[in-house]
């Protein structure tokens, strides 16, 4: 350097400066482009799902004037027993025939009857049960429309023609006539949140799957968090660093990368075949997901324990605290935010897991809301899988709607993980 004058050095630096700035810009641009790509992908996913799924939150109703005719119902009085046997279907069919008196012929009539949901008789029964004095009277009742009708009505908003699909021309004419006379309305689809699965899209809901997911996650959390934290504490605070602990560490990291379906097979072989636990149960699902989330929780808990400064341990140890006191009084409270964050992320993973649950029978068609961890149940992602597989067009929007519900749960969980970390994290 000594043989260069200061002016020469400055000149050399200046010459390189432009290219350095250019590279700097390029480097930053690459980062921005990557972020933009990620954001684009998320936006695309969300807009696609929302545009497809928002329709599921709306349900078309058909208004019919029904007469609770004792003769048609085949009952004389309203009580628990007669309500079971009463022929509400006949009443609804009568009401439909009265609305469209021009319909004749067997097949045409059958088509007319399929205007309303096959769940309509239950609507009627509930009304009569609530108001027994309605027997013999006439009233106007809103019934859920059949899923094909519902799909057709919704498509009419987009174009005058609408998407008919399986709907016949005749049916389309009836719908148009009902629509013109104000006997069709759209309402918020509460059924979607209060019912279990059903073969009929208009009666299908996510409640059973949601409760099943909740029960499964509870089992998973109750098992994986204490076990994971205990394992992490032992490995970080107690275990000597030797070949055995290295081996354990490699195995834990390995487990985190094992395809989840393998855990499903393991659960099938051990929990169901060997221990003979019930199939399709949140208990077994939770056990399998525990195996799957344990590595995540152990790894994140160990990282959280590692981040506690050793000076705190030394201070406590220098005061004469025992190993356990050091851990319980000082290390654990400081590591807890990180551990909880890891646990929430592990739970979010478990919530979205499908494959291992297929192996243990949680893919079964389950209508009832499970009331305990040994009841047959399904979970949200499996419900999505089932609906995505269904041929009815109305299940397309329900699939997307269920994905929206699942995504919102995941967003809530991941946001709370971030907030928790922000709130509890401590700086030294």
């Amino acid at each position, binding site marked *: 350097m000594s043989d260069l004058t200061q002016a020469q050095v400055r000149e050399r630096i200046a010459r390189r400066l432009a290219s350095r700035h250019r590279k700097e810009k390029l480097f930053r641009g690459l980062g921005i482009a990557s972020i933009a790509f990620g954001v684009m992908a998320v936006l695309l996913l969300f807009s696609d799902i929302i545009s497809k799924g928002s329709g599921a939150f709306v349900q078309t109703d058909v208004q019919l004037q029904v007469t609770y005719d004792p003769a048609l119902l085949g009952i004389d009085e309203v009580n628990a027993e007669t309500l079971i046997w009463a022929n509400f279907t006949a009443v609804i069919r009568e009401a439909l025939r009265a609305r469209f008196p021009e319909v004749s012929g067997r097949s045409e009539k059958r088509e007319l009857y399929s205007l309303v949901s096959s769940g309509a008789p239950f609507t009627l029964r509930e009304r009569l049960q609530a108001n027994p004095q309605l027997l013999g009277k006439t009233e106007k009742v809103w019934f859920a429309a059949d899923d094909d009708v519902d799909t057709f009505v919704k498509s009419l908003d987009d174009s005058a023609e609408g998407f008919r699909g399986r709907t016949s021309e005749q049916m389309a004419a009836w719908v148009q006539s009902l629509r013109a006379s104000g006997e069709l309305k759209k309402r918020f689809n509460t059924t979607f949140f209060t019912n279990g699965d059903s073969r009929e899209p208009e009666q299908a809901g996510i409640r059973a799957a949601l409760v099943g997911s909740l029960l499964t996650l509870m089992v998973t959390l109750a098992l994986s968090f204490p076990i994971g934290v205990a394992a992490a504490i032992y490995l970080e605070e107690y275990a000597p660093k030797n070949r055995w602990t290295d081996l354990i560490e490699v195995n834990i990291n390995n487990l985190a990368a094992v395809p989840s379906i393998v855990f499903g097979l393991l659960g099938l072989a051990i929990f169901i075949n060997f221990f003979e636990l019930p199939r399709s149960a949140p208990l077994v699902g939770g056990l399998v997901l525990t195996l799957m989330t344990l590595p995540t929780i152990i790894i994140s808990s160990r990282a959280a324990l590692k981040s506690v400064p050793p000076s705190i341990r*030394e201070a406590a140890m220098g*005061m004469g605290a025992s190993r356990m006191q050091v851990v319980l009084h000082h290390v654990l409270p400081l590591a807890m935010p990180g551990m909880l964050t890891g646990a929430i992320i592990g739970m979010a993973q478990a919530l979205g897991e499908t494959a291992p649950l297929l192996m243990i029978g949680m893919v079964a068609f389950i209508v009832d809301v499970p009331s305990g961890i040994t009841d047959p149940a399904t979970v949200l992602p499996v419900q999505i899988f089932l609906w995505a597989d269904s041929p009815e067009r109305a299940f397309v929007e329900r699939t997307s709607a269920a994905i929206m519900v699942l995504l919102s749960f995941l967003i809530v969980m991941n946001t709370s993980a971030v907030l928790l970390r922000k709130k509890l994290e401590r700086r030294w």
Partner: protein
Amino acid sequence: MNTMTLDAPGYSEPASPQTLEKETVDTRTKVRETVGTPFCDNAKLKMRNVNVFYNETQAIHNVSLDIGRNEVVAMIGPSGCGKSTFLRCLNRMNDTIEGCRVEGDLTLDDEPIYGPKVDVVPLRARVGMVFQKPNPFPKTIYENVAYGPKIHGIGSRRAELDEIVENSLRRAGLWNEVKDRLDKPGTGLSGGQQQRLCIARAIAVSPEVILMDEPCSALDPIATARIEELIDELRKNYTIAIVTHSMQQAARVSQRTAYFHLGHLVEVNDTETVFTNPEHELTEAYITGRFG
């Protein structure tokens, strides 16, 4: 020689002091034997032939030293000379370091410090420690001081604890500054206050010995002066061993000074002698600033 090992199953009997000296002592360092007065009559802590190993590396070579009652002994020496390692042997803080092995006779009031039957919990209650970097617990000031008494079951009632906390903070010269904010986090204090809080925390369990590992290295001169005053004050009740890099500090606070060099204890003498008329040429070289 009564020797103990911590966690070395494959440990073999150490070489006798003579052979050890011949083999491991670099003749360049001219360390034959500690010069001066390593022993005293009213010894609180007695260390004889202490060797410390980190795995295969020997950090302390055959050190023997007494620390008397109500005496402040300063340990000085260049970085990496083993003075902190030696200090940490006295309350077995080295136990927590993997691969660290301590050999030799160490006694507190003639009771062994190392041994299969010795419980470190009461030992550390008797031998407190103040660290280089102030390390208050991320809890309130009150809880910081009350922690030791609580875990050792010294003050069980709230009133008792209150008294212990107040006395400890008073002795550490911190009471007037923090009495109105005992429920505020200890980590919110200034560096000097934090270090005094750590001292208050250490004396809250009424230890007999306080070990200080460069307690002022992270503090400004004013905070340092306060801690030094405090050390002089504490001498009335406690035995103190202090590691320091500041020779002025050693001169100000200690009665005897021990000079360590590359794991050897070169010289121990009255502080005044060490700084005015050192016996060993290495000591002289260090205090006159020829190396270190």
